[in-house]
């Protein structure tokens, strides 16, 4: 019998098992909306075929004396189920055949929920696309004839810890540990999880962002979020507690990596009464400020500095030799200190591209993050074939922030279609 495959968690992933709980699930969901109803048996077969091909997903989480680690799972791939719970629920290591991802379906949609310790959005979509390809090949014989039953060219199986590969010794922390304004309000009953998708044309947003505000789509959509939070809480946002929006940056293009493990850092943009030195801020001014703040941080050296500090800490032998339960206390403390620094997070997983043969079968992709303690509202952006989905996940009963956000986008002349998971009706 061969020895089991195993690997350590990457620098970011070390945090997720420690802080994960029912209220902080660290799970994100990627969905593919097909142009046909999902056949659960075919989907199960696709999961059974694809899972063993991805060593980064065919794992379970184990607890060592000093660290968590991931070990080859060896059990049957997770069972596919019809969606019957709120999205982004915690993936319990002891259920789901010990896998750290879950596959569900509802009508035309395939959902892949991923525990963040496994992979970030890049790694998640890397797996998701193959799952969709496999499903379509099984469901459509004409596709199976055209395409061989193997992974597509360009799919990555690289599991390098790119943080370790690219960190530089001796860097100081580049994270801001200042507190930020935090949203508050009545929560949805019974641990409810609200999802609202704003669907729009990429071309329309691009035109507005470029021509009206002189910024990128990402800058514009981040600005809309910051604006909505700022405007909804104008009297409560202070200079000491500004609205600060964390924006994850995919580091792969900067460091020439194609790892499927986590490889991102957070940069941020903030707006408060002191940001522009004036009490009243217009949306145009705010967008320019957000654009400049984000641009100033998108520098390879700065990005390297952000993660190098964390990796340097992980490399200290004295810290490594601390037993896991004590390490967990320290990790939790640092995490919550950092989490307090941000009001929300807006992540952009970018444009999803499929091989041309599969495109006619897929209508849309969406992605969203679980909201978390201190950040009970988050935004996620994802586009496919010229349609962009700006998805808001929220634990609040009111919809004031998404209302201001989507009204702003609509006021800029962009057609917005809204879909929700029904919790606000």
């Amino acid at each position, binding site marked *: 019998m061969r020895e089991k495959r195993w690997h350590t968690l990457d620098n970011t992933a070390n945090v997720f098992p420690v802080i994960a709980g029912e209220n902080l699930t660290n799970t994100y969901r990627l969905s593919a909306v097909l142009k046909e109803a999902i056949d659960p048996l075919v989907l199960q077969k696709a999961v059974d075929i694809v899972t063993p091909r991805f060593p980064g997903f065919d794992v379970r989480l184990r607890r060592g004396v*000093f660290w968590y680690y991931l070990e080859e799972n060896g059990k049957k791939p997770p069972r596919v189920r019809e969606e019957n719970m709120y999205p982004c629920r915690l993936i319990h290591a002891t259920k789901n055949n010990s896998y750290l991802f879950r596959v569900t379906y509802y009508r035309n949609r395939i959902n892949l929920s991923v525990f963040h310790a496994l992979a970030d959005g890049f790694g998640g979509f890397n797996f998701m696309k193959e799952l969709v390809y496999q499903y379509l090949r099984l469901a459509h014989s004409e596709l199976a004839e055209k395409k061989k039953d193997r992974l597509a060219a360009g799919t990555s199986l690289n599991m390098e810890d790119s943080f370790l590969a690219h960190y530089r010794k001796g860097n100081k922390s580049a994270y801001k540990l200042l507190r930020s304004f935090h949203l508050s309000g009545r929560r949805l009953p019974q641990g409810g999880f609200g999802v609202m998708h704003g669907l729009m044309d990429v071309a329309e947003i691009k035109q507005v962002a470029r021509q009206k505000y002189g910024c990128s789509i990402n800058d514009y959509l981040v600005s809309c979020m910051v604006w909505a939070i700022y405007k909804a809480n104008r009297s409560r946002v202070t200079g000491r507690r500004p609205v600060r929006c964390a924006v994850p940056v995919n580091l792969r293009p900067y460091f020439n990596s194609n790892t499927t493990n986590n490889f991102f850092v957070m940069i941020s943009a903030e707006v408060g009464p002191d940001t522009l030195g004036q009490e009243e801020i217009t949306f145009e001014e705010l967008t320019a400020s957000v654009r400049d703040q984000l641009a100033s941080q998108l520098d390879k050296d700065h990005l390297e500095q952000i993660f190098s500090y964390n990796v340097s800490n992980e490399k200290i032998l004295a810290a490594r030799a601390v037993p896991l339960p004590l390490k967990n206390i320290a990790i939790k403390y640092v995490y919550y200190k950092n989490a307090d620094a941000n009001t929300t997070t807006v992540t952009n997983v970018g444009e999803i591209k499929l091989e041309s043969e599969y495109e006619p079968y897929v209508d849309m992709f969406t992605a969203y993050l679980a909201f978390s303690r201190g950040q009970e509202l988050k935004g996620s952006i994802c586009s496919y074939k010229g349609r962009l989905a700006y998805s808001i996940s929220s634990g609040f009963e009111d919809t004031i922030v998404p209302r201001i956000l989507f009204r702003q986008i609509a006021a800029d002349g962009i*057609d917005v*279609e809204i879909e929700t998971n*029904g919790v606000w009706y």
Partner: protein
Amino acid sequence: MKEKEKNRCPACQVYINDDTHFCPLCGSVLEGEYQGVNTYPDVKGHKRIINLTYRIMVFIAVAASLLCVTIDFMRDYRLQWSLFVVAASLYAIYITTMFIKDNKSYKSRLFFAAVATVLFLSSIDYLVGFRRWSVNYVLPVAIIVVELFYVLMMALNFRNWQSYIILECGMVVVSLLPIVLAIAGISSQPLLGYIALGLSLFVFLGVVIIGGSRARAELSRRFRV
């Protein structure tokens, strides 16, 4: 804004795809006759049933305890038999919570169920005058039962037997407890404690020696600094 067939909110100026006649953003009644589609299931009812059943169970246990404590106290202003009911209720709530709501592995569940059982029986022993049967017999027998269960599970789950090594390691440490209690004079019959410790030691050594390289690899993974 282009004219679409979909229902539109006149206040927010957005189109609503859901099967609804009012806007989820602002509550305004929508313009248009479009029959929307809900793209998510209604999960609220499902969660309610699970939570309700659990809460009813907790309520019954708490109410029974309070009722018994009140009746017991009103008889002679002392608490006697009602404490058994309180201990039994706490035990029942813990065990039910662990098996219904917790998501621990079956290995952890068995371990914590054994701990809860030992604590529950120890409290009964204490309430009836502490004749030490809980520390003399219940504790070592619980260790032996858990140990034998792990051995059985290792045999049944043979493909993954090495993941039990760390538990066996922990069981050796736990098995020292009856010996410590005997040395401290809390228990008076250490024989079963020695049997429990011996069993744990032999099982651990057996797994490490017979397991060979796979056992050593598992230990090196678990103890990697």
